[in-house]
Each structure stands twice: as C-alpha cells, then as structure tokens.
C-alpha cells in the first residue's frame, strides 16, 4: 500500500488534529503535525509548548485534538514530556497502566520553544535519555506573538524586532544550528525534514519513533504571515529551501550523518529569498553584500555537511 494510503489508514477515520482550529489560512504547521502523528503506528500522546499551534488549537472550551494532549508553558515542553514518559515507565513497571501497549510521546514546539526559551529543558531531556520525539516546527521567528526574531531567524531576515530599515538590514546574527546542538547530546536519532518532502519526513518519524532514546526532528515550516507570502506559494518556497541547500535534509543515526536528499543542481540563494516579503529588502542593490554573505554561509555549511556525510559513510 502506498505510504500516503497508510497514513490515511493510521488515522482510523479520526484525524489527530481536526479542522475548525484558529491557525492561519495556509499555515504550514498542521500538515507537519498530521504527517508526524499519522506516521507513528502506536498511540500518541502530544506535549505542546506555548505557541501558535497550542493557542490556536485549544481555545477553551473547544479543542481540535483527538489524541491525549497537554500544554503547560512555553519553555518546558521537553520537561513535561520527560515527566509523562517517566510516568509511563513507572506505571508500566508495576502493571498499573490503564491500557497495555506502547505509547509514543511527541513534544511539539516552535523555534522559540526549542532554540531559545525551550533550550534548557530540551537539553536536559536529551541528556537524560528519555524515550520521546521532540519536533520543532521551525518557522524562524516568534510568530504567535507577532513575528519577533528568535535564535532560529536567519541572517538578514526582517522581523518585528529586527526590522529592516535605512539603518538595518534585518537580523544581524546567524541562526543557531539547533540540529547540531541536538547531535551534540549523543542521542540515537536527529534529523532535519520539511513538509514538502513528506515521504522523507514520514520515514524519519518512523525511525525517530523506533529509536531507543530521545529523537529530535527539526522541521522547517512556512508561515504565510511571518514570511510574507500567499498561502498558495507555500510549496514553491519550501522546495526552494531544500533546492538552495538553505535547509538540507539529513539524519544523524547514532552520531553518523547521512544526507537523505541531494539537489540535482543547487539553486542560488535568491530563489529562496525572492518569494518572501521578509527578505524583500535584501533584493535591493544596496543589500547585495548581505546576499553574498548569506550565499557564502550556505555554501560553507553545505560543503561541511557533505564532507561529514562522506566521512561517516566511509567509516561505516
């Protein structure tokens, strides 16, 4: 059966995240969430950080979630998940679970709740080795509070707290390599993925769920409002992220790097910048130097990643 049909079947007629939520028209997050939950063949418990997904899907007294779901605060999704997962193991040990059988624990956080305010709790959970999947839906800014810059905002992006202007070209700092930070915790599985390569995302989730320990997935996710594009341009933009190597698709299994997709021809970074209003200021002639710098950063990162993947493949 095709993978897509399997995802449908896994829902058993009941979408984990149903419609009627308040996420924006064309929001990139729900597809990521449904692909992930539908790719896991055990029951799932979701732990959400504060952010767009949480706020827009659970306005009391309604909810868009059909799976067990809990939210506590902004910075602690990984800590809450640690508690839920540990409770599961403790209760399983003394045969006190309400139902027998495996459960997969999935923490969902935006880049704010992962890279910045969520970093400590995530680091602790990864170091302690809890068996759960932490998914960052990375749309590269604090979108829910009005598109403020985060540690994931790319160099040169205009946000409401790093706006472009005559005295500024946007965010003046490089974004963190959160995926590398996760790898540095020696966890069994880490990957970068993207919704538009949904087959790759789905396979990665399967591997994450099978890992005997923490798994971290960084999923670049578009935001029509924050990135400045019509919803219908979503797929073109997400594809550009991959084809320009802005967002390489790879996984790190027990510390070994492996690319899961290599563009046939790497496109120039302008193909990624051009369709997004948050980069519009960079396309002016006076910002040429910034674009050159961005291209160089992407090139260096891509070369380094390829080299690491080759090394690890050779050592295998």
């Amino acid at each position, binding site marked *: 059966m095709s993978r*897509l*049909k399997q995802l449908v079947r896994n829902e058993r007629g009941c979408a984990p995240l149903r419609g009627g*939520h308040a996420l924006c*028209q064309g929001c990139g997050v729900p*597809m990521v969430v449904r692909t992930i939950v539908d790719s896991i063949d055990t029951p799932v418990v979701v732990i959400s950080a504060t952010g767009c997904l949480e706020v827009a899907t659970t306005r*009391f*007294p309604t909810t868009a979630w059909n799976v067990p779901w809990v939210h506590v605060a902004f910075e602690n999704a990984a800590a809450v998940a640690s508690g839920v997962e540990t409770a599961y193991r403790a209760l399983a040990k003394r045969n006190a679970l309400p139902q027998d059988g495996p459960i997969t624990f999935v923490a969902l956080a935006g880049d704010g709740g992962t890279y910045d305010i969520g970093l400590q709790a995530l680091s602790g959970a990864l170091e302690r080795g809890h068996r759960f999947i932490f998914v960052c839906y990375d749309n590269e800014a604090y979108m829910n509070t009005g598109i403020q810059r985060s540690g994931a905002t790319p160099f040169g992006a205009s946000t409401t707290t790093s706006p472009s202007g005559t005295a500024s070209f946007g965010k003046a700092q490089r974004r963190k390599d959160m995926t590398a930070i996760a790898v540095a915790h020696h966890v069994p599985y880490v990957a970068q993925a993207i919704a538009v390569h949904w087959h790759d995302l789905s396979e990665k989730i399967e591997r994450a769920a099978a890992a005997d320990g923490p798994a971290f997935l960084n999923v670049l996710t578009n935001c029509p409002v924050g990135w400045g594009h019509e919803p*219908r341009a979503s797929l073109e933009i997400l594809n550009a992220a991959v084809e320009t190597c802005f967002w390489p698709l790879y996984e790190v299994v027990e510390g070994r790097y492996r690319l899961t997709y290599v563009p046939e021809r790497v496109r120039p970074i302008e193909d990624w910048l051009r369709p997004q209003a948050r980069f519009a200021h960079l396309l002016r002639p006076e910002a040429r130097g910034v674009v050159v710098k961005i291209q160089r950063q992407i090139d260096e990162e891509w070369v380094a990643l390829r080299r690491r993947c080759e090394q690890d493949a050779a050592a295998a």
Partner: protein
Amino acid sequence: MSELKSWTELPVGGTVSPGDAEQPRTGSWRTGLRPEVDLSKCVNCLLCWLYCPDSAIRLDGTTFVGFDHDVCKGCELCEVVCPVGAIGMVRDGN
C-alpha cells in the same frame, strides 16, 4: 449563539474532552473563493488530504469524496498540489 457555561459546570482544570467540544466553523474565514472538484479527473492520490491545513478533505476509506466547507479557509493549497488539475477555486456562495 452558544451558551457560556457557569464555573460549576466546567470539568476540573479546564480539561476538554474532544467529544464534548464544538467545532468552530472556520469556513466563515474564506474571503470569496472555495475549492470544488471535478471527480472525473481525481486519481485519489490523497495529496490534497495531506496538505490541507484544516483537515477539510473528506475521504471514504482512501477515496476522495469532497470538501468540508464548514472548516475550509480557502488557502488554495489543494488546488496547487493536485497533480491532475481536478481541483479549482470557485466564487464562494457564502
């Protein structure tokens, strides 16, 4: 217009059971266009189902049957992603 419950009628801790939760009709968000399908062209690839942010694609098993216009926000991603051009955006009647 739905009624607002008193504090004595609420479950402990603000807990919500999905079965008890009303589904807001976010179809009212559309600004003039809604998707319609030409079923004779549809090949049941299910990509529209996957990409729809609002779970607005209705299936029977793994067969496309239609849209849930009560929740569709008119983002047009289904039209973009359909590989055979079976989906088109039309003027909304609402």
